[in-house]
């Protein structure tokens, strides 16, 4: 009985292993009478569920006030100038006036690039370094939060 079973096992396993390779499957399981064999490719992840359950959240993440439209790559761009404070960003010194900067402008370190209004105070935001403005990530009169990328200076 034991011999017979072992014989069956070996032959069957070899067959299954060959099929596994030919078909490029990761796992085969067969059942015959009271015998069940599973052949699986070693090292292949078999997880049905993620190893750590994602935090159960009834609600989706809220719309962060001003960040929804910001491209993800700009967020991580080390050349981006980020908002040092919360407030409303203005691109020109007065409504209708010419903007401080445009895409393609050369800026000098310390030059005002935009204004953030907070608590009725206009805060001039200086360029942290000299360079060329390649992107403006905020629109005029839009709210910004702390750390939000404003412009990119290359």
């Amino acid at each position, binding site marked *: 009985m034991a011999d017979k079973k072992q014989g069956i096992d070996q032959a069957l396993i070899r067959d299954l292993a060959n099929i596994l390779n030919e078909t490029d499957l990761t796992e085969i399981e067969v059942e015959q009478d009271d015998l069940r064999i599973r052949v699986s490719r070693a090292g292949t992840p078999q997880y049905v569920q993620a190893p750590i*359950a994602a935090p159960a*959240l009834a609600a989706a*993440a809220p719309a962060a006030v001003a960040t929804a439209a910001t491209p993800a790559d700009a967020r991580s761009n080390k050349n981006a100038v980020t908002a040092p*404070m919360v407030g409303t960003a203005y691109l020109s010194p007065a409504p209708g006036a010419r903007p401080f900067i445009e895409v393609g402008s050369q800026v000098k370190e310390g030059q005002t690039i935009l204004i953030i209004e*907070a608590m009725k105070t206009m805060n001039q935001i200086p360029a942290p370094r000299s360079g060329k403005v390649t992107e403006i990530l905020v629109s005029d009169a839009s709210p*910004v939060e702390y750390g939000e990328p404003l412009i990119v200076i290359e």
Partner: protein
Amino acid sequence: MISKVLIANRGEIALRVLRACKELGIATVAVHSTADADAMHVRLADESVCIGPPPSRESYLNIHQIVAACEITGADAVHPGYGFLSENAKFAEILDAHGITFIGPTAEHIRIMGDKITAKQTAQELGIPVVPGSDGEVKPENALEVARKIGFPVLIKATAGGGGRGMKVAKTEADLDEAVSTARSEALAAFGNDAVYMEKYLGKPRHIEIQVVGDGMGNAVHLGERDCSLQRRHQKVWEEANSPALNVEQRMKIGQICADAMKKLKYRGAGTVEFLYENGEFYFIEMNTRLQVEHPITEAITGIDLVHEQIRVASGAGLSVRQEDIVFSGHAIECRINAEDPRTFVPSPGTITHFHAPGGLGVRVDSGAYQGYRIPPYYDSLIGKLIVHGRNRVECMMRLRRVLDEFVIDGIKTTLPLFQDLIGNQDIANGDYDIHWLEDYLANKTDA
């Protein structure tokens, strides 16, 4: 009316306030530091604003940024939670100047109660019992007369003092002369000033506090007491409502004194009058002009949502209850779950790998924690509060024992094992403890 509330806090209390706002149909704005971008209160809020880097000073304590966040979101009210800016009179004034409602008392009341001396004077004027003491300096010549008036034992303290120096206890008249002269010479050596004053000495007091809510127009109620005697380094660890030490008559008497005082003061919002309690007498310590961490045990035994009441009175709608409507039902205990080693109390920030909150009848968990949440190292270690309610203290304790075994927080150390230990202690079972009990107990345990 209030239509959008900015919650100027983080952690479990931000979530607590958010829940009340949602129930009242009020829009919510969460503010957060860069370290809290993944926090639960941020995820559940209608809008969020990042207000600064991790240090509290530059984010949660930054008035300028918080007011700017109100402006860009159009929030018409701010709930400060507890801690941070909740007892900052200047913050209340600035919001007022910007036409934003501060969900709390007036700046004037915050200021009065924030100063030890004016708080005690005001309490006394309002008829609240204070620790009896000498009005001003005590000289060796008049010490006996003053001490007899106060009643022994008495404590002699340096007027310039602090840190336990220049402090001596006189248990009886026989000790008095020596206590006064030692305190005076210690005071002179330590502070260059030998002036001392005298106070009633309390050897084994309990910490009992009365919850009050006022509408700011001369109406106020009390919601009974909380016993917060189990403390470690002046941090409350375990709180109960009602106190195992008070009977109905005592409860209603001290409660009424506090409610009457708040009516006279025209106090607005939730507040807590804290007392030391010994031998049937109450002695005022301070008043907290905000929501307390342990407020849920009062909610459990009264069924009244304190944050709802805060928002109501801030919007001018008045209180939803009269004193005669308030009924105390059963018993509630709160355990503060800290991310700390349960023996050494060393903070244990890190990632929570598994989180299972207990459930069942009479169980409430207020926590911003979840599986995969990383506890930032910048803020306090409170990660959740477990509140258990039962029809009486015995049922409450039995339920708490069951619930503590059910609560799972893996990946960090928490104070859960401390509570599993306390629930089996005979003194705790008997409600027989004072403000020194826990520290003595922990010290003896370490020695053993």
